[in-house]
């Protein structure tokens, strides 16, 4: 094991060095960094050229330049070694620029990666469980469509239809009757297809979801909910209860009493916390909210530990998930209460969904307002990135689930009379996750660097913009800095994927 890790690290370093040479040579040959100065007619042109040659060592041959760059970059690995990734053509230190860009990109890709994985796996599994049904075909077609949609087309469409459309609509947020009817019917068809069953059950589900959706939309319409949204003291407890029940039904099944008790206690504590916290919540900042989530998770874990009876591990899982999701509902309600003051802020001026940048300049407000601002700016690029990787995950999750459902141990599980929920969740789902880990790991590495196009469309200054601007201005060092980060991340994540694979699948041995 240790020798595997060491050998792997050694080979990775060699690959990195070789790839950096390839990249450095290509970048150096691609464009001349002096091009813009040759074309300029400023009086001190020659001085500028001499200065830039000195900054970038352009008087040396490419391999020598690369070697010097490599020595500087190698010092980044040594703690306090004085990281040196060279300077830009404006003589800025690249490490400083890089740190800023990495922060922005991490903010952008984290949410989209998590959402894409969760939704992709979920939809892939639904698709597999309903193989060759209308919903399977629709999901398959949708995933092909998103897969074939280049990110720049997706970005422009989102900007025009979601951002401009929603902002315009917010002037008078009323659903007209054709909209209410159409949306209700769509939700009815969707839910009856997902839940399935015989004709009677499908009809009941269809009718229930049409009526619920229609009533909800009508209610939102007449109370102008979108101008002043909130979940309020009725919906918040209901949603918390629904999450608790959902967790129990999915993870433990309806007959597990200990699970009902765990989720019930956690939900009651959360509802109590909701009413107690109302006056204070506005004054919380990011750390405070984080602490609330941790507290909720601890409450859930404690409930699971004390009420878990013979299956403490599963009860704790149910408790923690209920706690975190329920706290999410409470925090969401608080965000909604702040929404109105955000939209009416003079800097926002009633058009909340932003299409460029990562924040509204000079916006005044507490943590809640700033977070809503970040949310409205990240919303579109996140959706755009999410839909693209989501498509691939759906396909993998569906294929993996079908493969697993065909195994003999699934037949055995069914034959010994386990309920379908146990077979799907405990036997099939867990095993189908094994191959997905590898793909997720590889994708996370790619996502950190892969937002070049999305960042350009939404004028977001992260890693992609660093690369793009560096390359178009023939500025080699930012491009190389970008390369180092994504290459190191990609290699690390592949390595972690291999280790994780052998950890979760005992049949696989690293050697």
């Amino acid at each position, binding site marked *: 094991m240790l020798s595997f890790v060491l050998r792997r690290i050694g*080979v990775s370093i*060699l*690959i*990195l060095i*070789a*790839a950096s040479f*390839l*990249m450095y040579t*290509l*970048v150096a*040959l*691609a*464009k001349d960094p002096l091009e813009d100065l040759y074309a300029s007619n400023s009086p001190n042109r020659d001085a500028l050229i001499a200065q830039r040659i000195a900054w970038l060592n352009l008087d040396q041959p490419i391999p020598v330049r690369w070697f010097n760059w490599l020595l500087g970059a190698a010092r980044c690995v040594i703690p306090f070694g004085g990281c040196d990734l060279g300077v830009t053509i404006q003589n800025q230190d690249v490490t400083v620029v890089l740190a800023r860009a990495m922060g922005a990109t991490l903010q952008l890709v984290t949410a989209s990666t998590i959402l894409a994985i969760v939704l992709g796996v979920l939809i892939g599994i639904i698709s*597999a469980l309903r*193989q*060759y049904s209308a919903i399977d075909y629709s999901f398959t077609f949708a995933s*092909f*469509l998103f*897969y*074939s*949609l*280049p*990110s*720049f*087309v997706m970005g*422009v*469409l989102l900007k*025009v239809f979601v951002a401009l459309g929603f902002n315009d609509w917010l002037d008078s947020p009323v659903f007209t009757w054709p909209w209410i009817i159409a949306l209700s019917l769509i939700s009815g068809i969707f839910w009856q297809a997902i839940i399935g069953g015989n004709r009677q059950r499908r009809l009941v589900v269809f009718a229930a979801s049409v009526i619920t959706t229609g009533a909800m939309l009508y209610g939102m319409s007449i109370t102008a909910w979108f101008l002043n949204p909130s979940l309020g003291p009725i919906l918040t407890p209901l949603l918390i209860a629904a999450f608790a029940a959902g967790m129990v039904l999915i993870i433990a099944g309806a007959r597990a009493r200990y699970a009902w008790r765990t989720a019930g206690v956690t939900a009651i504590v959360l509802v109590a916390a909701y009413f107690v916290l109302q006056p204070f919540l506005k004054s919380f900042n990011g750390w405070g909210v984080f602490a609330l989530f941790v507290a909720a998770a601890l409450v859930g874990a404690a409930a699971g530990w004390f009420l878990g009876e013979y299956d403490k591990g599963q009860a704790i899982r149910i408790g923690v998930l209920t706690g975190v999701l329920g706290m999410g509902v409470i925090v969401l309600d608080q965000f909604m209460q702040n929404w109105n003051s955000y939209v009416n802020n003079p800097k926002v001026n009633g058009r909340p969904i932003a299409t460029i940048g990562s924040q509204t300049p000079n916006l005044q407000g507490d943590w809640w307002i700033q977070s809503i601002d970040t949310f409205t700016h990240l919303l579109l690029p996140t959706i755009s990135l999410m839909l693209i990787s989501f498509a691939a995950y759906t396909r993998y999750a569906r*294929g993996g689930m*079908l493969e697993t*459902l*065909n195994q003999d141990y699934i*037949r055995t599980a069914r034959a010994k009379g386990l309920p379908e929920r146990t077979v799907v969740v405990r036997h099939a789902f867990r095993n189908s996750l094994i191959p997905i880990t590898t793909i997720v790991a590889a994708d996370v590495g*790619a996502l950190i*660097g*892969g937002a*070049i*196009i999305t960042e*350009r*469309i939404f004028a977001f200054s992260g890693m992609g913009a660093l*690369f*793009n601007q560096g*390359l*178009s201005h023939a500025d080699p060092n930012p*491009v190389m800095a*970008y*390369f180092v980060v*994504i*290459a190191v991340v*990609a*290699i690390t994540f592949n390595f972690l994927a291999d280790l994780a694979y052998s950890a979760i699948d005992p049949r696989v041995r690293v050697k």
Partner: protein
Amino acid sequence: MSIPIDPALEPPTAPSDGGAHVQTADERGVSQGRLTFRRFMAHKPAVVSAVLFILIVGFAVSATGIGPLPGWWKWNYEELIPITNAGKPTLTLWPFALGDHPFGQNTVGKDYFAMVMRGLVNSSYMMFIIGLIGAFLGVIVGALAGYYRGWVDSVLMRLTDIVIVIPVIVIGAVVGSAVGNLGPLLLALFLGFFVWTGIARLVRAEFLTLREREFVEAARVAGASDARIIFKHILPNAIGVVIVSTTLLIAAAIILETSLSFLGYGVRPPDVSLGLLISANESAFQTRPWLFWWPAAFIVILSLLVNFVGDGLRDAFDPRQKRIVFRKVKELPEDAVIVAGTTADVPEGALVTAGGAAIVEGVTSDRPEDVLDEEIAPDPDRRG
């Protein structure tokens, strides 16, 4: 490997290995190539996609002309024409009429139909060149690494690792910024040199298993050279992997090319690519939406069609993916014969009954549904 055998001459014995085959009369004694072709033709979306793709590209080529041959469309993509009717599209579907500028005119007055058709031709031939060069290099590298193993494998696979570390869009942008001004053809050639890594890994894995099979041993004993074994014996057996991944590479190549052109590292003006058209007219969406819609629609359509063809090919070459799970059974054809054999996971030859033939139970489609809990598609790969 695919010698066509007259179905009538094929002895009615069942295959000696592989799982419980459900054979229909059509599939008894047909060559593997024809079986694959048939399965592909049965995949309706894939066939429709292939036909549509050929029609669209053919239409675009005939409109723009090819080489010295002029196309049938009256304008050229570079001509400046005085703007009429604010550059709105003149295409009407009912009654069908193209009009003077079916897709409208861009902001300086160039005919947008001619530009989109030119972009379509450029983008589609570039995607084929990128995909085919990538596939060619990938097959060579993967075949050599998988066949020779040892140091050849180590060197080639480390080389693959070096290239694979750099994302395709990144290396494509760097290459494109260097050679993009040399024209679409050269750009596509250069891009092709950096997209072979995925196929190389797949082909290598395929070769590593195939080289241990008996038919390779037999060929070597018969005195075949390495080149002959690689290209005549092993490669035809790996053709499924190669064709499917080439198709998917071609689908990825159109996204790569249009993305690079969108960013400004691909095809440069005055020449046209679909990505370039979108990048030039992105901001005009509010005033002249058709300048965005036409190229966007064609990119999505081309990419979607190629992906569908790839999906159909994958199902045709690897029918194992197509199984139905749960207690659901498709109606079997009247003449179906269910052949019970060893399960698929038992190594070949582990459970061969007398005469090498498995037990033929001769159960027909009236078999109770709950006995069969999955439809197992015929699996020619297991026949060796």
